[in-house]
Protein backbone atom coordinates (compact mmCIF):
# COMPACT_ATOMS: atom_id res chain seq x y z
CA UNK A 1 0.00 0.00 0.00
CA UNK A 2 0.99 3.55 -0.39
CA UNK A 3 2.56 4.65 2.81
CA UNK A 4 4.40 7.67 3.97
CA UNK A 5 7.59 7.06 5.79
CA UNK A 6 7.16 8.92 9.03
CA UNK A 7 9.73 6.95 10.88
CA UNK A 8 12.42 9.28 12.16
CA UNK A 9 14.07 7.03 14.71
CA UNK A 10 17.36 7.37 12.88
CA UNK A 11 17.62 10.89 14.19
CA UNK A 12 17.74 9.77 17.80
CA UNK A 13 18.79 12.79 19.81
CA UNK A 14 20.32 12.97 23.24
CA UNK A 15 17.30 14.32 24.95
CA UNK A 16 14.46 11.95 24.50
CA UNK A 17 11.43 14.17 24.52
CA UNK A 18 8.13 12.80 25.57
CA UNK A 19 6.00 12.71 22.50
CA UNK A 20 2.32 12.56 21.97
CA UNK A 21 1.49 9.20 20.44
CA UNK A 22 1.43 9.71 16.71
CA UNK A 23 -1.52 8.17 14.97
CA UNK A 24 -0.63 6.33 11.79
CA UNK A 25 -0.88 8.36 8.61
CA UNK A 26 -1.65 5.26 6.60
CA UNK A 27 -5.10 5.24 5.14
CA UNK A 28 -6.75 1.97 4.41
CA UNK A 29 -7.32 2.10 0.69
CA UNK A 30 -9.01 -1.27 0.29
CA UNK A 31 -12.62 0.05 0.03
CA UNK A 32 -11.57 2.65 -2.50
CA UNK A 33 -9.77 0.07 -4.60
CA UNK A 34 -12.79 -2.21 -4.36
CA UNK A 35 -14.98 0.56 -5.64
CA UNK A 36 -12.55 1.42 -8.40
CA UNK A 37 -12.56 -2.12 -9.66
CA UNK A 38 -16.30 -2.37 -9.39
CA UNK A 39 -16.68 0.72 -11.56
CA UNK A 40 -14.04 -0.55 -13.93
CA UNK A 41 -15.88 -3.82 -14.39
CA UNK A 42 -19.16 -1.99 -14.93
CA UNK A 43 -17.82 0.34 -17.59
CA UNK A 44 -15.90 -2.40 -19.36
CA UNK A 45 -19.02 -4.52 -19.59
CA UNK A 46 -21.34 -1.74 -20.69
CA UNK A 47 -18.95 -0.16 -23.17
CA UNK A 48 -20.28 -0.26 -26.69
CA UNK A 49 -17.65 0.46 -29.23
CA UNK A 50 -19.36 -0.12 -32.54
CA UNK A 51 -21.67 2.83 -33.04
CA UNK A 52 -24.24 2.43 -35.79
CA UNK A 53 -23.16 3.58 -39.22
CA UNK A 54 -25.14 4.85 -42.14
CA UNK A 55 -25.27 4.31 -45.84
CA UNK A 56 -26.59 7.01 -48.10
CA UNK A 57 -29.27 6.08 -50.59
CA UNK A 58 -30.86 8.21 -53.27
CA UNK A 59 -34.27 7.18 -54.47
CA UNK A 60 -35.25 8.28 -57.97
CA UNK A 61 -37.52 11.28 -58.31
CA UNK A 62 -40.70 10.27 -60.10
CA UNK A 63 -40.68 11.71 -63.61
CA UNK A 64 -43.50 14.17 -64.22
CA UNK A 65 -43.61 13.67 -67.97
CA UNK A 66 -42.14 11.43 -70.65
CA UNK A 67 -39.26 13.79 -71.45
CA UNK A 68 -37.84 13.50 -67.98
CA UNK A 69 -37.74 9.75 -68.11
CA UNK A 70 -34.28 8.46 -68.73
CA UNK A 71 -33.77 5.90 -71.41
CA UNK A 72 -32.26 2.61 -70.45
CA UNK A 73 -29.01 2.25 -72.30
CA UNK A 74 -27.90 -0.94 -74.00
CA UNK A 75 -25.08 -1.64 -71.62
CA UNK A 76 -27.18 -1.33 -68.48
CA UNK A 77 -27.58 -4.31 -66.20
CA UNK A 78 -30.94 -4.98 -64.65
CA UNK A 79 -30.93 -6.93 -61.42
CA UNK A 80 -34.08 -8.56 -60.19
CA UNK A 81 -34.36 -9.22 -56.50
CA UNK A 82 -37.05 -11.68 -55.49
CA UNK A 83 -38.05 -13.39 -52.29
CA UNK A 84 -35.13 -15.74 -52.91
CA UNK A 85 -32.65 -14.30 -50.43
CA UNK A 86 -29.55 -15.97 -51.86
CA UNK A 87 -29.83 -15.25 -55.55
CA UNK A 88 -29.83 -12.31 -57.89
CA UNK A 89 -31.40 -12.63 -61.32
CA UNK A 90 -29.97 -10.30 -63.94
CA UNK A 91 -29.95 -9.51 -67.62
CA UNK A 92 -28.11 -7.07 -69.87
CA UNK A 93 -29.63 -4.25 -71.87
CA UNK A 94 -33.26 -3.59 -72.60
CA UNK A 95 -35.81 -6.26 -71.85
CA UNK A 96 -37.06 -8.12 -74.86
CA UNK A 97 -39.29 -11.14 -74.14
CA UNK A 98 -37.96 -13.05 -77.10
CA UNK A 99 -34.24 -12.40 -76.74
CA UNK A 100 -33.45 -11.59 -73.15
CA UNK A 101 -31.71 -14.29 -71.20
CA UNK A 102 -32.09 -14.00 -67.46
CA UNK A 103 -29.08 -15.32 -65.63
CA UNK A 104 -28.58 -16.08 -61.99
CA UNK A 105 -25.84 -15.13 -59.55
CA UNK A 106 -25.40 -14.72 -55.81
CA UNK A 107 -24.16 -12.20 -53.24
CA UNK A 108 -20.71 -13.70 -52.78
CA UNK A 109 -17.41 -12.18 -53.88
CA UNK A 110 -17.27 -14.61 -56.77
CA UNK A 111 -20.81 -13.80 -57.78
CA UNK A 112 -22.19 -10.32 -58.11
CA UNK A 113 -18.95 -8.54 -57.25
CA UNK A 114 -17.02 -10.28 -59.99
CA UNK A 115 -19.78 -9.47 -62.46
CA UNK A 116 -19.90 -5.81 -61.49
CA UNK A 117 -16.13 -5.36 -61.38
CA UNK A 118 -15.82 -6.82 -64.86
CA UNK A 119 -18.67 -4.76 -66.30
CA UNK A 120 -17.38 -1.61 -64.65
CA UNK A 121 -13.68 -2.25 -65.29
CA UNK A 122 -12.86 1.19 -66.72
CA UNK A 123 -14.24 3.10 -63.79
CA UNK A 124 -12.73 0.76 -61.22
CA UNK A 125 -9.22 1.13 -62.70
CA UNK A 126 -9.57 4.90 -62.97
CA UNK A 127 -10.75 5.21 -59.39
CA UNK A 128 -7.94 2.93 -58.32
CA UNK A 129 -5.41 5.19 -60.05
CA UNK A 130 -6.88 8.22 -58.32
CA UNK A 131 -6.61 6.53 -54.96
CA UNK A 132 -2.98 5.66 -55.68
CA UNK A 133 -2.31 9.32 -56.41
CA UNK A 134 -4.03 10.30 -53.20
CA UNK A 135 -1.89 7.89 -51.23
CA UNK A 136 1.25 9.42 -52.74
CA UNK A 137 -0.02 12.81 -51.69
CA UNK A 138 -0.33 14.14 -55.22
CA UNK A 139 -3.98 15.16 -54.81
CA UNK A 140 -5.98 16.39 -51.86
CA UNK A 141 -8.90 14.72 -50.14
CA UNK A 142 -11.56 16.95 -51.66
CA UNK A 143 -10.02 16.71 -55.12
CA UNK A 144 -10.11 12.95 -54.90
CA UNK A 145 -13.79 13.02 -54.04
CA UNK A 146 -14.58 15.38 -56.90
CA UNK A 147 -12.58 13.44 -59.46
CA UNK A 148 -14.09 10.17 -58.28
CA UNK A 149 -17.58 11.52 -58.71
CA UNK A 150 -16.70 12.80 -62.16
CA UNK A 151 -15.37 9.42 -63.25
CA UNK A 152 -18.33 7.56 -61.79
CA UNK A 153 -20.99 9.75 -63.34
CA UNK A 154 -19.52 9.75 -66.83
CA UNK A 155 -22.11 9.23 -69.57
CA UNK A 156 -20.85 5.87 -70.75
CA UNK A 157 -20.33 4.24 -67.38
CA UNK A 158 -22.29 1.24 -66.28
CA UNK A 159 -25.81 1.84 -65.03
CA UNK A 160 -27.53 -0.70 -62.84
CA UNK A 161 -31.26 -0.98 -62.43
CA UNK A 162 -32.34 -2.76 -59.30
CA UNK A 163 -35.84 -4.13 -59.44
CA UNK A 164 -37.67 -5.45 -56.47
CA UNK A 165 -40.93 -7.14 -55.65
CA UNK A 166 -43.12 -7.11 -52.54
CA UNK A 167 -41.37 -9.92 -50.75
CA UNK A 168 -37.80 -8.81 -51.38
CA UNK A 169 -36.03 -8.46 -48.06
CA UNK A 170 -34.59 -5.11 -47.08
CA UNK A 171 -31.29 -6.81 -46.26
CA UNK A 172 -30.84 -7.92 -49.86
CA UNK A 173 -31.22 -4.39 -51.13
CA UNK A 174 -28.73 -3.02 -48.63
CA UNK A 175 -26.31 -5.80 -49.55
CA UNK A 176 -26.63 -5.09 -53.23
CA UNK A 177 -26.23 -1.33 -52.82
CA UNK A 178 -23.17 -2.11 -50.76
CA UNK A 179 -21.72 -4.14 -53.60
CA UNK A 180 -22.51 -1.33 -56.02
CA UNK A 181 -20.63 1.11 -53.80
CA UNK A 182 -17.67 -1.25 -53.57
CA UNK A 183 -17.59 -1.60 -57.34
CA UNK A 184 -17.84 2.18 -57.88
CA UNK A 185 -21.20 2.03 -59.60
CA UNK A 186 -22.75 5.41 -58.90
CA UNK A 187 -25.54 5.21 -61.41
CA UNK A 188 -28.21 2.95 -60.08
CA UNK A 189 -31.90 3.20 -59.49
CA UNK A 190 -34.44 1.16 -57.62
CA UNK A 191 -37.75 0.21 -59.17
CA UNK A 192 -40.36 -2.53 -59.41
CA UNK A 193 -40.26 -5.78 -61.33
CA UNK A 194 -42.61 -5.62 -64.31
CA UNK A 195 -45.23 -8.29 -64.99
CA UNK A 196 -43.33 -9.49 -68.04
CA UNK A 197 -40.21 -9.99 -66.03
CA UNK A 198 -42.19 -11.66 -63.30
CA UNK A 199 -43.63 -14.15 -65.76
CA UNK A 200 -40.21 -14.79 -67.19
CA UNK A 201 -38.88 -15.52 -63.71
CA UNK A 202 -41.70 -17.92 -62.91
CA UNK A 203 -40.95 -19.84 -66.08
CA UNK A 204 -37.28 -19.89 -65.17
CA UNK A 205 -37.91 -21.33 -61.76
CA UNK A 206 -39.96 -24.23 -63.08
Amino acid sequence: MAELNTDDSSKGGKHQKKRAKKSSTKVDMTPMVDLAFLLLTFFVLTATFGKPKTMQLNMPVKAKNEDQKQKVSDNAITMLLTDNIDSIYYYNGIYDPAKTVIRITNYSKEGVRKLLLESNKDVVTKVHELEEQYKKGAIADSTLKKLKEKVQSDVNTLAVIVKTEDKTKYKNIVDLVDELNICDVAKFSIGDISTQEQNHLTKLKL
Partner: protein
Amino acid sequence: MPKIKVPRSNPSLDMTPMVDLAFLLVTFFMLTASFRTEEAIVVDAPKSVSDEMLPDNAMMVTMDTAGRAFYTIDGEEIKKNTLMQMGEKYSVTFSEDEIKEFQLMKDFGHPFSELKTYLNATKNERTKMDKNAPGIPMDSLNNELGDWITFGKISAYGESQTKGTDFSNFRYSIKADARTDFRVMRKLFNAFEKSNIHTFDLVTNLEQE
Protein backbone atom coordinates in the same frame (compact mmCIF):
# COMPACT_ATOMS: atom_id res chain seq x y z
CA MET B 1 22.20 -26.30 17.45
CA PRO B 2 21.13 -22.78 16.80
CA LYS B 3 17.93 -22.33 14.96
CA ILE B 4 18.15 -21.14 11.37
CA LYS B 5 16.62 -17.75 11.17
CA VAL B 6 14.29 -17.32 8.25
CA PRO B 7 14.27 -13.66 7.26
CA ARG B 8 10.74 -12.49 7.56
CA SER B 9 9.54 -10.52 4.59
CA ASN B 10 6.73 -8.07 4.75
CA PRO B 11 3.64 -9.79 3.31
CA SER B 12 1.98 -6.54 2.24
CA LEU B 13 2.97 -5.46 -1.22
CA ASP B 14 2.82 -2.08 -2.88
CA MET B 15 -0.49 -1.76 -4.68
CA THR B 16 -0.07 1.83 -5.80
CA PRO B 17 0.73 1.13 -9.48
CA MET B 18 -2.18 -1.23 -9.78
CA VAL B 19 -4.57 1.24 -8.23
CA ASP B 20 -3.24 3.96 -10.51
CA LEU B 21 -3.89 1.79 -13.50
CA ALA B 22 -7.35 0.84 -12.29
CA PHE B 23 -8.34 4.46 -11.92
CA LEU B 24 -6.86 5.32 -15.28
CA LEU B 25 -9.01 2.64 -16.89
CA VAL B 26 -12.08 3.72 -14.95
CA THR B 27 -11.61 7.28 -16.14
CA PHE B 28 -11.11 6.14 -19.71
CA PHE B 29 -14.20 3.95 -19.81
CA MET B 30 -16.28 6.57 -18.03
CA LEU B 31 -15.36 9.25 -20.51
CA THR B 32 -15.78 7.08 -23.60
CA ALA B 33 -19.04 5.55 -22.40
CA SER B 34 -22.01 6.60 -24.44
CA PHE B 35 -25.15 5.26 -22.94
CA ARG B 36 -27.64 3.73 -25.26
CA THR B 37 -30.60 6.01 -25.50
CA GLU B 38 -33.81 4.31 -24.66
CA GLU B 39 -35.65 3.31 -27.75
CA ALA B 40 -39.22 2.22 -28.07
CA ILE B 41 -38.22 -0.59 -30.36
CA VAL B 42 -35.08 -2.55 -31.04
CA VAL B 43 -34.47 -3.66 -34.60
CA ASP B 44 -31.71 -5.70 -36.15
CA ALA B 45 -30.24 -3.38 -38.78
CA PRO B 46 -28.56 -4.90 -41.83
CA LYS B 47 -24.79 -4.97 -42.21
CA SER B 48 -22.84 -2.84 -44.61
CA VAL B 49 -19.23 -1.89 -45.28
CA SER B 50 -20.08 1.81 -45.14
CA ASP B 51 -18.26 3.55 -42.29
CA GLU B 52 -20.02 6.89 -42.27
CA MET B 53 -21.17 7.97 -38.84
CA LEU B 54 -24.80 8.42 -37.98
CA PRO B 55 -25.60 12.15 -38.21
CA ASP B 56 -26.75 13.92 -35.08
CA ASN B 57 -29.22 16.28 -36.61
CA ALA B 58 -31.89 14.12 -38.11
CA MET B 59 -35.38 12.78 -38.39
CA MET B 60 -35.51 9.05 -37.91
CA VAL B 61 -38.11 6.48 -38.80
CA THR B 62 -37.66 3.01 -37.38
CA MET B 63 -39.35 0.07 -39.02
CA ASP B 64 -39.72 -3.43 -37.65
CA THR B 65 -40.45 -6.68 -39.47
CA ALA B 66 -44.17 -6.36 -38.87
CA GLY B 67 -44.16 -3.02 -40.68
CA ARG B 68 -44.77 -0.86 -37.62
CA ALA B 69 -43.31 2.61 -38.02
CA PHE B 70 -41.77 4.59 -35.15
CA TYR B 71 -40.93 8.24 -35.49
CA THR B 72 -38.55 10.65 -33.81
CA ILE B 73 -36.91 13.95 -34.64
CA ASP B 74 -33.94 15.71 -33.03
CA GLY B 75 -34.09 19.15 -31.47
CA GLU B 76 -36.43 20.37 -28.73
CA GLU B 77 -37.73 23.38 -30.59
CA ILE B 78 -38.26 21.35 -33.76
CA LYS B 79 -40.11 18.71 -31.77
CA LYS B 80 -42.39 21.29 -30.22
CA ASN B 81 -43.22 22.92 -33.55
CA THR B 82 -43.87 19.59 -35.20
CA LEU B 83 -46.27 18.57 -32.46
CA MET B 84 -48.10 21.93 -32.61
CA GLN B 85 -48.59 21.63 -36.35
CA MET B 86 -49.81 18.06 -36.04
CA GLY B 87 -52.20 19.22 -33.31
CA GLU B 88 -53.50 21.95 -35.55
CA LYS B 89 -54.20 19.56 -38.39
CA TYR B 90 -55.93 16.96 -36.23
CA SER B 91 -57.53 19.59 -33.91
CA VAL B 92 -55.91 18.39 -30.72
CA THR B 93 -54.46 20.83 -28.20
CA PHE B 94 -51.63 19.93 -25.90
CA SER B 95 -50.89 21.35 -22.46
CA GLU B 96 -47.47 22.75 -21.51
CA ASP B 97 -46.66 19.60 -19.59
CA GLU B 98 -47.57 17.37 -22.50
CA ILE B 99 -45.39 19.38 -24.84
CA LYS B 100 -42.48 19.15 -22.42
CA GLU B 101 -43.03 15.42 -22.13
CA PHE B 102 -42.98 15.12 -25.91
CA GLN B 103 -39.73 17.05 -26.11
CA LEU B 104 -38.03 14.67 -23.69
CA MET B 105 -39.35 11.56 -25.36
CA LYS B 106 -37.47 9.33 -27.76
CA ASP B 107 -39.33 7.57 -30.57
CA PHE B 108 -42.94 6.46 -30.41
CA GLY B 109 -45.18 4.28 -32.54
CA HIS B 110 -48.75 5.27 -31.84
CA PRO B 111 -51.45 6.87 -33.95
CA PHE B 112 -52.00 10.54 -33.24
CA SER B 113 -55.29 9.82 -31.48
CA GLU B 114 -53.44 7.76 -28.86
CA LEU B 115 -50.55 10.17 -28.42
CA LYS B 116 -52.18 12.10 -25.59
CA THR B 117 -52.69 8.94 -23.56
CA TYR B 118 -49.13 7.93 -24.28
CA LEU B 119 -47.76 11.29 -23.12
CA ASN B 120 -49.66 11.11 -19.86
CA ALA B 121 -48.64 7.53 -19.12
CA THR B 122 -45.97 6.62 -16.58
CA LYS B 123 -42.66 5.13 -17.61
CA ASN B 124 -43.75 1.58 -16.89
CA GLU B 125 -47.01 1.98 -18.70
CA ARG B 126 -45.14 3.39 -21.67
CA THR B 127 -42.83 0.41 -21.89
CA LYS B 128 -45.91 -1.77 -21.98
CA MET B 129 -47.54 0.45 -24.61
CA ASP B 130 -44.35 0.37 -26.72
CA LYS B 131 -44.45 -3.40 -26.78
CA ASN B 132 -47.98 -3.43 -28.16
CA ALA B 133 -47.55 -0.32 -30.27
CA PRO B 134 -49.58 -0.47 -33.47
CA GLY B 135 -47.12 1.78 -35.31
CA ILE B 136 -47.85 5.12 -36.92
CA PRO B 137 -50.40 4.66 -39.73
CA MET B 138 -49.03 5.19 -43.22
CA ASP B 139 -51.78 4.01 -45.54
CA SER B 140 -52.86 6.15 -48.41
CA LEU B 141 -56.13 6.90 -46.60
CA ASN B 142 -54.65 7.72 -43.24
CA ASN B 143 -51.10 8.85 -43.81
CA GLU B 144 -50.13 10.19 -40.41
CA LEU B 145 -46.50 9.28 -40.89
CA GLY B 146 -46.47 11.42 -44.01
CA ASP B 147 -47.79 14.33 -41.95
CA TRP B 148 -45.17 13.83 -39.26
CA ILE B 149 -42.50 13.85 -41.96
CA THR B 150 -43.87 16.95 -43.68
CA PHE B 151 -44.31 18.96 -40.49
CA GLY B 152 -40.96 17.76 -39.19
CA LYS B 153 -39.29 18.98 -42.33
CA ILE B 154 -41.07 22.34 -42.14
CA SER B 155 -40.10 22.76 -38.47
CA ALA B 156 -36.49 21.79 -39.15
CA TYR B 157 -36.40 24.30 -42.00
CA GLY B 158 -37.82 27.03 -39.76
CA GLU B 159 -35.26 26.23 -37.10
CA SER B 160 -32.38 26.43 -39.54
CA GLN B 161 -33.66 29.80 -40.76
CA THR B 162 -33.83 31.32 -37.27
CA LYS B 163 -30.49 29.89 -36.26
CA GLY B 164 -28.88 30.57 -39.61
CA THR B 165 -27.61 27.02 -40.04
CA ASP B 166 -27.38 25.05 -43.23
CA PHE B 167 -30.61 23.14 -43.83
CA SER B 168 -28.84 20.56 -46.00
CA ASN B 169 -27.23 19.27 -42.81
CA PHE B 170 -30.61 18.04 -41.70
CA ARG B 171 -30.83 14.37 -42.58
CA TYR B 172 -33.45 11.68 -42.83
CA SER B 173 -32.49 8.32 -41.40
CA ILE B 174 -34.29 5.07 -41.83
CA LYS B 175 -33.57 2.24 -39.46
CA ALA B 176 -35.24 -0.90 -40.59
CA ASP B 177 -34.93 -4.53 -39.65
CA ALA B 178 -32.90 -6.57 -42.13
CA ARG B 179 -35.79 -8.97 -42.66
CA THR B 180 -38.39 -6.34 -43.49
CA ASP B 181 -40.27 -6.93 -46.72
CA PHE B 182 -39.68 -4.34 -49.40
CA ARG B 183 -43.44 -3.90 -49.74
CA VAL B 184 -43.32 -2.11 -46.39
CA MET B 185 -40.19 -0.16 -47.25
CA ARG B 186 -41.78 1.08 -50.46
CA LYS B 187 -44.67 2.50 -48.46
CA LEU B 188 -42.17 4.27 -46.26
CA PHE B 189 -40.24 5.68 -49.22
CA ASN B 190 -43.51 6.88 -50.70
CA ALA B 191 -44.33 8.68 -47.45
CA PHE B 192 -41.02 10.51 -47.70
CA GLU B 193 -41.49 11.13 -51.39
CA LYS B 194 -44.62 13.18 -50.66
CA SER B 195 -42.42 15.67 -48.82
CA ASN B 196 -39.91 15.65 -51.68
CA ILE B 197 -37.32 13.77 -49.70
CA HIS B 198 -35.26 11.45 -51.84
CA THR B 199 -31.97 11.09 -50.00
CA PHE B 200 -31.82 8.86 -46.97
CA ASP B 201 -29.31 7.61 -44.48
CA LEU B 202 -29.93 3.94 -43.97
CA VAL B 203 -28.76 2.88 -40.54
CA THR B 204 -26.49 -0.15 -40.76
CA ASN B 205 -24.04 -2.04 -38.62
CA LEU B 206 -20.44 -2.25 -39.68
CA GLU B 207 -19.56 -5.43 -41.49
CA GLN B 208 -16.16 -6.97 -40.90
CA GLU B 209 -14.63 -8.48 -43.96
